[in-house]
């Protein structure tokens, strides 16, 4: 009993958001717990009046935000600023971040807010405490970008990058890299603009030369920063694409390929289908051998079998000379149709119908059996049910025909079968749709 009471006390002592490390850790830290306890009420004081008013105020702001009452929220926020002077040091430290989050949300949505107000607020908040300078700077820059103010955003990022305060923590270092990467991206935009300018210049000589020089310098600035960020695990689609585009422009094909390969195959990175697509498209543009292309898509097939590029993969495999590729070609098609989002993909069905015919002609019936064996227990209900046959026939006759043909092969039904119309589960589609066709 004692242990439990202690545990309970641990609950109560806990602050609303902050967990003190020495308390026994409850199973789940619940934000509504403190309300539970407070509602019991009668044991001792609830806390200081200050803490009470700020917490009530915070609730009001959050409620107003949910109701999109921006004006009301902003009025309450003015009162909430007193948390900056909270005697509880933990709360005091958290305060600027909470205020920034609330305030930026309000200013982002308030009908009378404008960029100047937002910037003024951001500049003020940046300098309260040291913790949030970089975060707020980055968000500020993104806000400016969102409003199309590229130059201001660039200036802002530049400023943030040069900010120094004592030793940087590991996370701040990463944040600086992200800020630099965004700056690099803006450099890339400028580079991209210059490139179109240069290519449109008719005149030769000094002007072109200067423009090209200018362009190069932007490339150098951008590439340094972009190169840094894509070494850190993350999702960097835009950065990688921009970097590769510049490398390609300067003829560094090997470098570009290396970047893309690392981005796709580094295990520390999240499994991002786009990384594989970028690599595939690059190799395709490079006119890489088909085996190479197939190996890239084979990995993507294992990760995301439902990707739309899998149809292209199927055609590649079909064209290949190797028999194992032909076999994989069937599996790729079947795997696409496994997914609920692809059930009405006419291309996939017509590919499958055609390919099944081809395989059976080529005397590889065992491939079909192999692919079918893991699906025979659910495909009939999933694809070929009576309900779906009727629905497909009503909505898209071509699809219905393709499916009917495929089901005929897969389910091994003979034509002119006796018509059985019943709404049972798992009624093969072939029978019904075929009979509908005959009735036409």
């Amino acid at each position, binding site marked *: 009993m004692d242990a439990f009471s202690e545990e309970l006390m641990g609950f109560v002592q806990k602050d609303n958001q902050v967990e003190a490390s020495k308390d026994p850790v409850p199973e789940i830290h619940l934000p509504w717990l403190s309300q539970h306890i407070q509602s019991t009420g009668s044991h001792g004081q609830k806390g200081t009046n200050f803490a009470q008013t700020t917490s009530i105020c915070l609730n009001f702001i959050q409620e107003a935000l949910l109701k999109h009452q921006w004006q009301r929220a902003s009025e309450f926020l003015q009162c909430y600023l007193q948390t900056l002077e909270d005697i509880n040091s933990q709360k005091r430290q958290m305060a600027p971040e909470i205020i920034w989050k609330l305030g930026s949300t309000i200013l982002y949505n308030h009908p009378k807010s404008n960029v100047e107000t937002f910037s003024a607020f951001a500049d003020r908040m940046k300098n309260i405490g040291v913790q949030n300078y970089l975060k707020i700077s980055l968000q500020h820059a993104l806000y400016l970008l969102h409003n199309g103010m590229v130059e201001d955003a660039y200036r802002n990022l530049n400023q943030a990058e040069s900010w120094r305060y004592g030793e940087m923590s590991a996370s701040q270092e990463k944040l600086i890299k992200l800020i630099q990467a965004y700056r690099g991206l803006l450099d890339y935009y400028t580079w991209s603009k210059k490139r179109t300018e240069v290519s449109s210049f008719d005149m030769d000589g000094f002007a072109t030369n200067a423009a090209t020089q200018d362009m190069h310098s932007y490339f150098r600035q951008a590439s340094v920063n972009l190169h840094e960020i894509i070494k850190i695990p993350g*999702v960097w689609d835009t950065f990688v694409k921009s970097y590769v585009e510049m490398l390609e422009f300067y003829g560094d094909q090997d470098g570009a390929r290396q970047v893309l390969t690392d981005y796709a195959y580094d295990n520390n990175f999240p499994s991002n289908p786009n990384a594989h697509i970028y690599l595939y498209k690059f190799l395709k543009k490079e006119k890489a051998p088909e085996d190479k292309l197939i190996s890239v898509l084979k990995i993507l097939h294992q990760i995301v079998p439902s990707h739309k590029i899998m149809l292209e993969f199927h055609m590649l495999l079909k064209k290949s000379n190797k028999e194992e590729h032909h076999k994989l070609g069937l599996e790729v098609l079947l795997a696409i149709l496994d997914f609920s989002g692809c059930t009405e993909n006419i291309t996939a069905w017509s590919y499958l119908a055609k390919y099944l015919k081809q395989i059976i002609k080529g005397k590889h019936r065992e491939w079909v059996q192999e692919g079918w064996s893991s699906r025979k227990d659910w495909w009939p209900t999933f694809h070929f049910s009576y309900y779906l046959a009727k629905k497909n026939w009503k909505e898209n006759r071509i699809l219905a025909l393709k499916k009917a043909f495929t089901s005929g092969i897969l389910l091994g039904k003979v034509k002119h079968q006796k018509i059985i119309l019943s709404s049972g589960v798992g009624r093969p589609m072939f029978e019904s749709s075929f009979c509908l066709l005959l009735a036409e």
Partner: protein
Amino acid sequence: MDFPDNLFPTFFLPGPPGLSDSPASYLAPAWSDYMQLLKPPQTQDPSINPQHEASYVTKWGRWKSDTPGPLPFLLPGADPWDPELMSQDLLFRGRVKQPARAKATIDVIEQLNHFLWDHGDIAFGPLGMLLQENFNLGEKKKSRKNKMVMNTEWLLRDLNGYQPKGCPWAHLSTRQRRFSLLGGTVLGEEVENLLGGLLHEELETRWKRLLLDEASTGGALGWVPGAKPHHGQLVYPTGRAHDQLNFQKVKLSPTNEPQALGDPSHILLRGPVRQVVTRTIQGEALVAVRSDHHCALWKLEHRGPPEPLQVLEMEKEATGISLSPHLPGELAVCTRSGAVCLWSPQHGLQQIHKDPETFVFKDPSSWRWADFTAHPRVLTVADRTGLRFADARAPSDCGELLFRVGAEASCQRGERVLLAQYLGTPDPLPLSPTLHLVCTQFSLYLLDERLPLVPLLKWNHGLLSPPLLAQLLPPPYPEAPLPLLLGGLGGHLRMLHLSGLAAVVPPGCPSPTMLLFQLSAAGDVFYQRLWLQPDTSSESAGSPSTDHAEDLGLNSHSQTSATSSLGTVSEPSAVSWKPRAVACCRRWLKTLLQVPPTLPSWTPPTFSQHHLRWLKEENKGKVQEGLRAAMAEGRLLLQGDLAPLPPSDPPPAHEPFGTEDKLSERLEASWERKGAIWWDGQRDGSRLPRKRQSREKRRTQLSSSFSSVRSTSDFSDVNSPLPHPPKTPSPLHRMSETSQSLELSQELWVKNIPRERRQTLRDYLAVLPSPDSGNCSIPQFQNPSSQSLSTSEPGKCSVPCSQNPRTQTLFSPLPESYSAFYSQNPNSQSLYSQNPNSQSLYSPEPAFNSVFHSQNSSIQKLPSRHTPSLAGSQPLRKKPRMGF
């Protein structure tokens, strides 16, 4: 399926949750999250094409409500409802010595006090069994043969006048004093040790449930669209024990309020309904229901009663059930043992995952949740620490993680998964069918299964109660964002305890309308109509950048909106209660308030065994009847039951249910000096005060959770698959339990009872009616299901449930594990016989048995092993429950 070409830049830094300064958290709340989903800067100069997306409000309008709050949809049920346990009930409320260091403490003494009063049989039963060998309740001569047996007759007589409740001035006889001195230490310790542990366990579970009632994850209100566009059915549980599943037909109207068509048809289940899942696939409407140890599946026909398809029984508590959005009838069930099973009509049960450990880091919670993915053979399994794929084609423990409570999603310390839901449906929605929703106590995450571990969206939901319900709705307009409803269990949206949430979009309305049905914890259904109001221009007139947080561009082509502001969308001044709504509320309240305010408070009984056993002969018949009636009704034996009522005696005060007619009837009867006869007639008609019934019902609910244990061991002699109903090991309530154990001992006594005990028993049994004598056997073995039926139809209490063709009764288990429910009702077929496929999720595992023994060992070591006793059924209780 399309995958976005460009994803928003983000770090991917694995690590434990709570690294609050991790760079990933810089984009934590509100608009920055929404930024995350905006298209990243395009290749062309961003200044040329700044991404001004039209404001959500300008584009789609905003959901508004007709009324400031939800309106009652159905009249309140007949069952009274006591508010559930609150933290106040558990916490110590006395004066704290040092207010500065005030702490919440659980009031153990108060709880123990309650427990001893309410469950004396559990508390003192084992002691009784201990003493039984050496104490004699009043036999005169035979006991002298054995000097070890002591006659307690005088001790009992002394106790007769003793008023409990700890009066310090109570008179103590020498005998009592001696007894307490001799036995006190031993007996006291036993009670203390045993109860202390059990009470601790119980309080702990109660407290945890108070903080997070995880059993109700998913909600218990379902909507099944009907054949006609404006018709449908609500499926929800009612009853004190939430054990009556109702199917209420509803007619929707584009402009008026929804109408309930007739009375609901209902099915009585053996346990409380925790979750109701509905799904219509390929034209088949299915309802899956999760109870603690049973899951069941029904198919709804447009006409006729729901057709039961399958019942699964679980040894361990089921924590989640979900119906496949791809294949009709397929469902996934997960239990506290960490197992996830897939059941399909064709292939029966298949275990696809089993891991008692949590995925990411160690967490004590055994909560599991399973749902489907875009691939019909791949499931997601969730625990408190993350979400993982489980492939039904290759069952293994090592599927890929889809979500992890950690630094990748910039989770806070202590953050845990509370709900995981697959958002895809087979309907052609403008949303990729690969999205999954994960709710924690702080945030909502949206994940694409093709990009595991990297949330597409994180949104701080700010709910002050656990978000345990979520529903994605079809778009109000073509191409409009999909509303996503998120319901907290305890009132952040509604100030109502939500047990269920079902939203319906009636087709063919002039303006997009949404009907929001809510189920309260008391089992009442409420509704609220929301309609999409076109833009009010004042909002977006200011700057061009007034996007709202709801404008979440997803996957470049689809959008979803987290309508957090639902129910609170309207400005307070904008909406007011219309007279019609007020009238509706008033009607509802009137019905509700017909329940009497308070009944006289309970006082401890003062009759003594002495009076019971040494009654005069002429009174015996009356006493027999009274005792019999009391036992049948499962209530306390009152003085009035033992002695004949004086003819002019007024009926007890707590019978306020008689209508005016009854009152005059009664007055008339007493005028003619036939008041007692009239009164007896009323009592036999079992017009019980509602309070008592509800108490019984609660017991039913409590004891029903033990019955699965009973079924395997206690009643192992009942072997036939469909035993005769009166022999049914029904979930017993307390009083009939006693009668049953007496009944048992009557059968067994010849064999097992020591000779010196037999006389005592004979004496007892002489007082009791024989089980087969006359009409009393019916109430004595009355099944709890028919009792609860009588609750719903107060006028027809005596009608057995089989006469109600609309009621199917599914109740108590057979000893065989596969026959989870069966029906007593001749009209409804037995599920078992109808469905040979039915099977239990797990055959009784040795592991489970050992757990069971260890849980009971503390009690079982107490009763002597030599004799079966009056309280013989007690040790088989899995865990005593307390009525707080």
